Structures are given as structure tokens and as C-alpha cells.
């Protein structure tokens, strides 16, 4: 009787060992890829003439192969409308992240910081709350020269702050060299 009880105890205990620790490792789950932004593309469209696109690309993500950076070449004394898009080119077909930014426009802001002869960017689009968004804008070149444009994509910035571009978490920050002929 005693031994029976004892072995019964062990039997249940062993069952417990197997069944109570029920959390399982999900080994082999292929979902190891997170979406990322690999490419920033800016398209410049003059009032007349063909539009030009310039890309900043890092297809393998941080580290590894160095990013490929195209130089922006613009004509002097010209007005352009610009449109910026964000892509994931590590996927096939290429995924366009811009649509998602539009969807969550209140939580995003594209900022442009310029230096040298690169002219300032005027943001022309708005989010759902009528605050600046920055996927579209205008730029007006003057004299020829060299400079740069830094494009940043901010997540959850404080758009009411005095300097909204120094708030929020930066998802993208790339610098294009600019040449104005």
C-alpha cells in the first residue's frame, strides 16, 4: 500500500514534469526577417522638362557592404517639386514603405536640413491633423555650387514643438551631396 502510494506520487510527479512546463520554443519559425528601409529616393520635377530621381541605398542593412549614395545634380535658378519615398529593396518585389508612412502620417515627419548652396526645402503636404508631413515639397535653386541635403524620417515627433525635427525617434537619416550647375 505504502509503495503503491509512493509510486503513484512519482507517476503524477513525472506527469507534472512533462505537462506543467508547457511553454515551448518555437524552433524553426522562419519569420526571422523584419521589414526595414533600405532606400531613400527623392524625385525632383521641374516646371518643364523630365523629372530626375536620386537614391541613397543600403540593401544589406547596417554594416556589411557600404551604402551606395547618388549625388543630386540640379540646374541653377530652377523651381522643383520634390517627392520623397522610402523603399525596402531587400525584398522582391520591392516594398514601398511610403504608403505606410502616409497611413500613419500623424506619427511621422520628414525633415530636410541643407548646407552649402543647397536651397531650403518647403514642405507642402500635411498629415491627417493638418500638420506638416514632408513627403512632398518644393525647392528653388539659385546660384551654382555644392552642398548637401540631409533627409530624416522622424517617428512620433512633437510637431507642436519649436523644433519638431529634434524630437521623436529617428527611423532614417541620410545625407545626399548636392551639385547645382
Amino acid at each position: 500500500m505504502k509503495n503503491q502510494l509512493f509510486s503513484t506520487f512519482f507517476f503524477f510527479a513525472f506527469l507534472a514534469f512533462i505537462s506543467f512546463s508547457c511553454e515551448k520554443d518555437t524552433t524553426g519559425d522562419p519569420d526571422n526577417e523584419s521589414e526595414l528601409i533600405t532606400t531613400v529616393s527623392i524625385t525632383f520635377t521641374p516646371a518643364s522638362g523630365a523629372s530626375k530621381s536620386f537614391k541613397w541605398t543600403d540593401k544589406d542593412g547596417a554594416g556589411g557592404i557600404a551604402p551606395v549614395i547618388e549625388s543630386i545634380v540640379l540646374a541653377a535658378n530652377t523651381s522643383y517639386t520634390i517627392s520623397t519615398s522610402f523603399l525596402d529593396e531587400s525584398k522582391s518585389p520591392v516594398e514601398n514603405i511610403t504608403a505606410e508612412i502616409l497611413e500613419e502620417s500623424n506619427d511621422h515627419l520628414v525633415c530636410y536640413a541643407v548646407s552649402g548652396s543647397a536651397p531650403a526645402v518647403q514642405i507642402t503636404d500635411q498629415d491627417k491633423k493638418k500638420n506638416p508631413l514632408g513627403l512632398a515639397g518644393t525647392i528653388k535653386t539659385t546660384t551654382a555650387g555644392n552642398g548637401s541635403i540631409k533627409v530624416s524620417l522622424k517617428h512620433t515627433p512633437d510637431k507642436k514643438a519649436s523644433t519638431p525635427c529634434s524630437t521623436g525617434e529617428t527611423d532614417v537619416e541620410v545625407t545626399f551631396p548636392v551639385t547645382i550647375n
Partner: protein
Amino acid sequence: MSFSKIIGCKYGCFLGIMLHFSNYLFGQELHSSCSLKLQIAVVDPQGKPLAYVNVGVLGQSLGGSTNEEGILMFKNLCKDSYSFQFSRIGWEAYEFTFLLTKDTSIQIVLRESGIMLDKITVLGDGDKLGKNTIKEVLDLESLRSTMGFGLAESLKQLPGVQTLNTGASISKPIIQGLHSNRVLILQNGVRQEGQQWGSEHAPEIDPFLSTKIQVIKGAGSIRYGGDALGGIILVEPPALRREKGLDGEVHLQGMSNGKLGILSGQLNGNHSFGNLPVSGRIQGTLKNGGNLHTPDYFMNNTGVREENFSWMLGTEKNNLNSTFFYSRYFSILGILKDAHIGNLTDLTNAIERGRPLSDGEFSREIGRPQQQILHEFFQWKNIIDLQNDGHLEINLSRQFNRRKEFDAHRNFGTLPSSLENPNILFEITTYRGEVDLEHNWNTNFHGHVGLALMQQVNTTDRGSLIPDYSQWTGGVYYTLKYKKPASLWEFEGGIRYDMNKLRIDDLNPKLQDFRENQFQGFSGTLSSVFHFSNAGFLVFQTGSSWRTPHVSELFSEGVHHGSASYEKGNPYLVPERAFNNSIHFEWKEGKFKIQSTAYYNWINKYIFLSPQKEAVLTIRGAFPAFNYSQTNVSIAGLDGNMTYSLNNHWDLTFQAAMVKGRNVTGNDFLIYMPTNKVQFFTTYYLNAKENATHSFIRTQLTHVAKQGRVPADFDYALPPDGYFRLDIEFLTHIKNKFFPDIELGIALNNATNTRYREYLNRFRYFIQEPGRNLVVRLRIPFGQS
């Protein structure tokens, strides 16, 4: 005029208790009613003195524990009948009543209990861990008053422990200047296996399940692993109930800062089924807190949730006892939103601001970024009593750890599924098997021989910071202790061999050449104790331990968002080896009590993040780059405390710690070494402090100096200024008809609402430490104890 008596073994009582007591006159004169002395000596069946036995007197404000000689003195007793209770973890509890009529000396024989629930209780004779191991034990009162703040914050009470924090909610213990993979945490004798490598990964243990937490400093005990370069933390649940019946306790805590509430409880029972005694416990903790407050503003998204549960079931038959222990820890931690930065520009902006964008408000909602951590632990422990030869212990366990980290920004992807998905998901499953044989060669020599095997699978299901891997480890050890009764010296030595096989399961072609890795090595310790007088002893300890590089150090590659740095592993790292040397001093004479440890540790090939000249350009901007590298370092330190008991009512305690870490090869300081710290405690006992149910008011003044020993050009901001902080605590016991002993604690932490920043908080760039916090806690035991 002496007699001895044998108490018969009751049903359900495992071992007989023998009690001798002899009357012995201290003096010849007749005593007035309340000046009697009683000396209690507690020994084991072999007659060896038993230290640390708790002795309580029922219905009286008396109590204490036996000293190293197994002796406890009571003075100023009255001519009366006293009921004594004797208890010690791992030993049979015992109770007896007798009438005191004159100065008396009694000897109590306790026997080791069958149900021994922790490894510590079977380590040897008398004082289980032995004096050869340099250790600090967190007393139950300090543990209870701090366990609402988490394990690491409880441990911080000890002079040799500091913490590495990430914000106000994530805290990791630092021992002798080392943390994370260099500190082992053992839950009920089993190594905790989670993602302990990360500095923002806190230990996944509910302090409420424990009544004893101790820290072994340095490479003191190779029984638990050969890779504890800094030290070992032992978290032990209390022993199961041995007498028939039920008891339990409920903890209720409330904190003003964060409006945090804690409910924790446990129920212990014992029942015999036929001839089979079964003991059990269920225990659980719920914690809920919202945004914390600094003196100037709220810290957004710093709420916390915890849901912990554990049970234990044990039985005993003949010479075997068997225990099952299960615990489940689950927590959701909000991470300060202002500290989550996307790149270096954000970091620079945040440091420039030095505070959150807005003053924030109170909220219990935990949004992104956050961590969700689950740790499940299951253990089956068997101890076979080999009678006088020792014990054989077989310990099997399984652990599962799931860590989800949610960045401020969800992954881009299809809504809504991408909202629920963490940015990082690690899962780790560990099986361990351990056998330990304690062998008593004779009364002077005690040995341990053991084997430990582990198999582990770690998968990174999201985020690609570290690759998937599997790991097998095996270790064998032998320790021998020499302790001759009444000798001034004790010696202990041990040697251990460990082997580690690491396989990278990731199919990334870059890792092709590093798929199979193997490491092996020896570790060892030697220590001796010298009793320079009855009041004190010195411990000399030297040892060597080694640690294999962790997968994160070998193979991680990517941007670490918390620190805005690009970290790159190095697959060519070799194990690091430490040489630890310490001297420990303890002395207790009259009103003075001193303990202190001095250490000098040398680590060859210490693995650290070395800053690189070239930044790494990513789509998020340029990040400062750090590579895992190796160097030789030295870490020296001194810590200790000193208590002076003015009288029955006043205690003054001074506690201090300092650590100096040098990168010897690089001729520089080591980063993130603890700052010099001194603490001054004043305790006023409202009634006699020996009283087990004493009340006291304690003030604690802490001064932390500004860290001057920092590496050049390594940090984003200068170390913060030093600070003073004042904490006040009041503790009392309330008795009523239904609950015999309710413990009420009221504490005011950071009483002056001081603004300060802590060098060892990784969020010090962004935010102050929390402000004033009023803590009210109740502990309500119930049932037959």
C-alpha cells in the same frame, strides 16, 4: 541534578529529537525574580555545535539565533515557564516548554530533516556553506522591506553589491565590479538560464518566493559553476512545512511613486496519505505600477506588471526525499519613451535636453517601447540520505525563457499583425542534470564530488542581433574541506573541469566557418579560515575561474538602439580567465560587529566593447562602432560594514564600498565600474531589539561620490555629480486575535525628494532618478506555524 529525555517520534514526524538538559549553576547566589540566565547550546547528533539556529520564545519578546559555537544566551529571565521554538532551514524544527527556576544551561539536539529543499542544507556539517566561502546573507528583515523593488534592489542592501540600471524598472546586480554573464544566479540551487548577457535584461526571479538570499563573492564556490568571475547569488525558497496542517502568509504593499501595488501570498500544507507524508506550497505575486515620478516630472511609459506563480511539492520515504518545484515569472516592463533613440542625432538631442520633452502625466498604460519576459522553471530534486556518510543529490530541471522586446516603432509591415509583433524575440530552453555526492571521510574531512550537464537551445525568432544556437556543457568537480573541531584553522579546496560545445544553427553563410565551437578549462579555489579569537576570524581565498565567450560577444552584429552604437562580435574571442584573491574579516565583540572584504581580481583576456575610430554609416545615420575585444584588466575593491550597538535601543551602522577597475593593457579605467558609496544607518528600537517582534525607526543616509575613474573619450556625457539620499523606515508588529503577528512597514524613500542621477543607470543621460516614495507594506502570516 541532570536528566535527559527522549521525545518519541510522532506520526508524521520524520526523525526523533533527542533532548538533554542539565541544570547548571552559573552562580551560587539566589536570584531575584527576573535576573536568571539561560544558556542554550544546540548541537547535531554527533555533538557538533549548530550555528544559526533560530530560537524564539512563544508569547514573549525574546529570541535570537545561536552563534558559531551553537550557543545562545538569555539574560534577565524571570522565574517562569518558557516555551522555546528552535528552527533552522534543513533541520527538524523543535519546540519545548520548561519552568525556569535558576540559572540553567541546556543542550538541544536537532536532527537534520529529511525534506531538505535547498542545496545549501546538504553541503556539510553545521554551518552549511562554511566560513571558507566569503559570502553575505541578506537578513530576512531587509529582504522583506525591499523585495517589492525586485531582486537586484534587495541585494543592493549588501555592502558588496551594487546595481546596473536601465531606467527605474530594470536593475541588475553587480558583484565585485562585474555583472551579467560574470555573475551566476541560482534559484533553489539551479542556475538561472535566461538572456542574462544583456545589460538591460534583469533577473527573472520573484523575490517574494524566497526567504533567504545570499551572495557569494568572488570565485568562492566552484560547485555552482566554474564561470562565476564576479560572484554567485543564491535565491532559496523556504523549506516546506513538516508538521501536519496549514499555514501561509499574505503580503500587501503600496507605493506612492508609480501608485504601485503588490499582492503576494503563499499557502503551505502538510498531510499524510497512509504512511506517505506530502508537503506542498503554492505561492503567487501580482504587481501593478504606473508611471514613476522624479522630483520634477513624470517618466512616461515606466509602468510595470508582474504575474508570478510557483508551487512546490515534496515527500519523503526512508532515506529518500523528493521535491518538485515549479515557478513562472511573467513581467511587462515599460521603457522610458524619451530614452528610446533611433540614432546618434536623437541621442545628442536627448542628452542636450537632459529631461523628457514634456512633464508627462500619470498613467498605468504601458505602451511601446516595452519588454515582455516569461521565465518558466521546473525542477525535480532528489536527496538520498547516506546516513553518516553524507548525501547524494540528483537534480533535474527544465527552464524556458521568452523575451520579447518592442521598439518605439513597430516593424513596417501589414497592419494589424505587425502591431502585435515584437521587434526582438528570443526563446531559450535549458535542460540541466546535476548529481552531487557529499561524502564525510571522517569527522574532519568532508568532500563533494559532482557532475553537471546542460543542454540548451536558443532561438532568435525576431530581430537578428544574435544567431540561433545550441549549447552542451558538462562539468565535474571535487571539493574537500578540512575542519577539525576546536582547531583554529579550516581549509577548503576544490577543482572543476568544464567543457562547452557551442553550435551555431543559423544558416547565414557568414557564420559558415564558425558553426562548431568548443571550449574547455579548469577552475579551482583554495581557502583557509583562521580563528584569531573566539570573536573573529579571517578568510584567505584564492581561485581561478574562466568563462567562454557568449554568442552575443562572438557573433552579434547590429545597432544597439538603447546606446546608439553599432556593436560587432568577434568570432575569434578566446575564453577569459580570472584570478581572484580576497581576504575577509569578521569580528564581533561586545557592542562591535565588523565585517569586511578586500579583493584583487585579475582577468586575462577580459571581453569588452572597444570603441573603433570609424563610425558605421547606416540608413539611420552614422553610429559610433564598437568591437568586442579582449584585454587584461584588474579589479580591486574593498567593502564592508561596521555596527556599534549603543544599547538595547540604538544601533549605528556604517557601510562602505569602493571598486577600482583598470584596463591594464590599454592603460585606462574600465567603464561602468561602481562609484564609491558610503551609508550610515541609525536604528532606534522602540522595544528591546532582541525581541523577535521588535519595532524600530531607521534612517539611512547614503552618499554616492561622483565617478572619477572613467575611461577617456568613451562616454557620451560626463559622469553625474555625487549625491546624498535619505531614506526612513519604520517597522512594527501588530497582534490580534485572528492574526498573531502582522508586520507593518512604512518607508519613505528619497525622503528629501533629492534630484540626482546615478552613474550606473544607463538612462542617466535622459532622466533623473525617481523622487520621494512612500511605501506601506503589510505581511500577514496565518495558520499554525
